[in-house]
């Protein structure tokens, strides 16, 4: 009888194990691998289970529950998420230890019913853990396959418990004899094992189908995202083209006439100076100053708009910083120009910069120092080589009523303006100067020294 049941069980298990192995090789799924390993262990366990009870050694007694435990544990690993396995590992290993302890305790009296019942209870606990694992596994979800696995596991739990109870009352008790227990246990195990395998295979296919659907949806989403990104890029390109066109207009249609107006005013200034007409001269100088302020604001806006483009195309050249500073000082009208004093060593000094940007940076720094400095106070521009840092330093200092106003303020940020509301400006000048310094791998900092505000522009060579 034992042999017949054993044969049925063995061949059935071998068949499903082969199916699982084939599926594992085809799909490479981790869960199939563990389930297959569990089947291999089950086959080994089966051999021990149907062993003649009269000839069981202590190794057999320990190996059988251990194999059975390993079989359930591997199935649990197959259907559970990794985090869940980690969280119940302690209890699962506790069960294994309990199983060995029970076996050692009953040896050599292998038929102690109470201890064998406890043995079955421990297996039930493991099976319940597997049930919980399936329920908690978000990747599987509740599907036909998972319900089948859970149901078969539940039946296994019932069978285990039944066996436990019947072992207490079985051979000598009110229920059944040993053979009935074996037969009922084996049948229960075979039925639940077949159902569990079937359910598991369905689960795997359902999961694969879901993954496929998800990947189709993912591809569709990505395609939609790409299309959207392309549209956005086209839109950005269009805005950028419009911006470029606007810059072109500003450069040629606005700056050019402003340049001509300024040139005309310069001619008038020159003639008025020759004719000694101070009243008219003052008015013309004021008009010229207005034009130049507009022009500077325009240049700053253009630089701010093209600063990213400039980062991509940056062609610095070896220039004389003192010559650039001298030209920048001439950007201002006579009264302001006279306030600027440039101090530099006589030795020739060169630096690698973009002179157009450098002129704009220095113009903004000079303009800032002139505007915020006390009336008629000097703006000192010191240009020197910093050998330690390997570069050139421009120190621009002025005398302010309260140079501490900027404490805690990032005055190099966009649209940050000085404390005095009387002084006009867009708050872009220092930001532009700092950005230009960064473009040159340099820095722009400020500090207060002896009541003077000092801007320190460092440009590495």
């Amino acid at each position, binding site marked *: 009888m034992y042999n017949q049941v054993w044969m049925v069980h063995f061949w059935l298990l071998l068949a499903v194990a082969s199916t699982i192995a084939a599926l594992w090789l085809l799909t490479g799924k981790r869960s199939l691998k563990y389930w297959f390993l569990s089947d291999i262990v089950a086959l080994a366990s089966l051999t021990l289970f149907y062993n003649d009870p009269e000839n069981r050694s202590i190794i057999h007694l320990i190996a059988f529950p251990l194999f059975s435990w390993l079989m359930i544990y591997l199935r649990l690993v197959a259907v559970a998420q990794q985090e869940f396995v980690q969280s119940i590992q302690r209890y699962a290993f506790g069960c294994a230890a309990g199983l060995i302890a029970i076996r050692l305790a009953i040896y050599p009296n292998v038929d102690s019913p109470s201890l064998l019942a406890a043995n079955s209870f421990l297996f039930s606990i493991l099976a319940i853990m597997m049930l919980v694992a399936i329920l908690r596994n978000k990747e599987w979800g509740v599907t036909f396959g998972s319900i089948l696995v859970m149901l078969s596991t539940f039946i296994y739990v019932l069978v285990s418990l039944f066996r436990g109870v019947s072992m207490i009352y079985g051979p000598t008790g009110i229920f059944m004899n040993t053979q009935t227990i074996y037969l009922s246990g084996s049948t229960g195990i075979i039925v639940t094992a077949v159902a569990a395998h079937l359910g598991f295979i369905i689960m795997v296919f359902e999961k694969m189908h879901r993954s496929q659907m998800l990947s189709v949806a993912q591809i569709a989403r990505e395609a939609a995202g790409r299309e959207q990104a392309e549209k956005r890029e086209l839109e950005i390109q269009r805005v950028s083209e419009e911006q470029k066109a606007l810059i072109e207009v500003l450069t040629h249609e606005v700056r050019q006439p402003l340049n001509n107006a300024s040139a005309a005013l310069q001619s008038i200034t020159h003639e008025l100076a020759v004719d000694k007409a101070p009243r008219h001269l003052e008015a013309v100088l004021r008009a010229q100053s207005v034009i130049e302020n507009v022009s500077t604001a325009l240049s700053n806006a253009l630089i701010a708009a093209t600063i990213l483009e400039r980062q991509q195309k940056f062609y610095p050249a070896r220039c004389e910083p003192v010559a650039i500073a001298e030209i920048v000082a001439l950007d201002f009208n006579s009264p302001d120009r006279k306030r600027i004093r440039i101090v530099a060593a006589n030795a020739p000094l060169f630096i690698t910069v973009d002179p157009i940007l450098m002129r704009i940076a220095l113009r903004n720094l000079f303009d800032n120092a002139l505007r915020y400095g006390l009336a008629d106070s000097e703006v000192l521009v010191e240009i020197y080589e910093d050998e330690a840092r390997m570069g050139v330093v421009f120190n621009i200092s002025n005398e302010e009523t309260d140079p501490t106003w900027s404490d805690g303020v990032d005055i190099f940020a966009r649209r940050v303006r000085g404390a005095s509301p009387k002084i006009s400006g867009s708050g872009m000048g220092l930001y532009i100067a700092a950005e230009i310094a960064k473009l040159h791998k340099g820095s722009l900092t400020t500090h207060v020294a002896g009541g003077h505000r000092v801007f320190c522009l460092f440009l590495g*060579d």
Partner: protein
Amino acid sequence: MAADTQRLCIIDDDKDYGEFLADFLRSQGFDVDLFTSGADFIRDGTADRYDFFLIDLGLPGIDGVDLIILLRAKSRAGIIIISGRMGPDAFNSGLSAGADMFLNKPVRFDQVLQAIKTVSRRITTGDGGQTSWTLSVRASELKCSNGLAAQLTALELRMLQLLAEAGEGGIDRMSLSANVSIQETGSSRNLDAAVFRLRKKIEQATQRPAPIRTLHAIGYSITGQVSID
């Protein structure tokens, strides 16, 4: 004021601006002619009579950059670009063509005058037009076309020789430092410091920008004409 014998040529398609500037420069003692296109100037055929050219880049017909290339081929006169173009390309192409200075419009007349003075100072200290260099290995010196020369140490000579042999493509930092036995470890800037000192030495001795260009995060290269003797 500036040498009153200086003959100056303005080539700018903006006639109003050109005339205002010409009037101002005449008042400063210059002899000034104005052309509103490159074609008119070439047709006139008087390029060699000028000491100085003030050229706009955006000219109709022959572009300002092409005109500078033509002029530089046969003239060592000072060339200043006065242009409203702000892009980095404008400056780079103008200077590569052989201009001495780039002034971005709007520009005051005083600034033009100041630029003329600066460029004149360079011209009077030796070479007009583009600077050329000769690296004399035997004399261990770098000679500038303005007649001035910088004496070099063995390391500096080797460095310049390597750069000159590599040409405009340059040489990467690792190869350069290995070839001149400068240790470059981690964040050390030994090579940068050596190049910084070399540039300074050349510039102080010759009054000209050193012909060494930094290729950021790559290495260094020679810029301009450097021949090895």
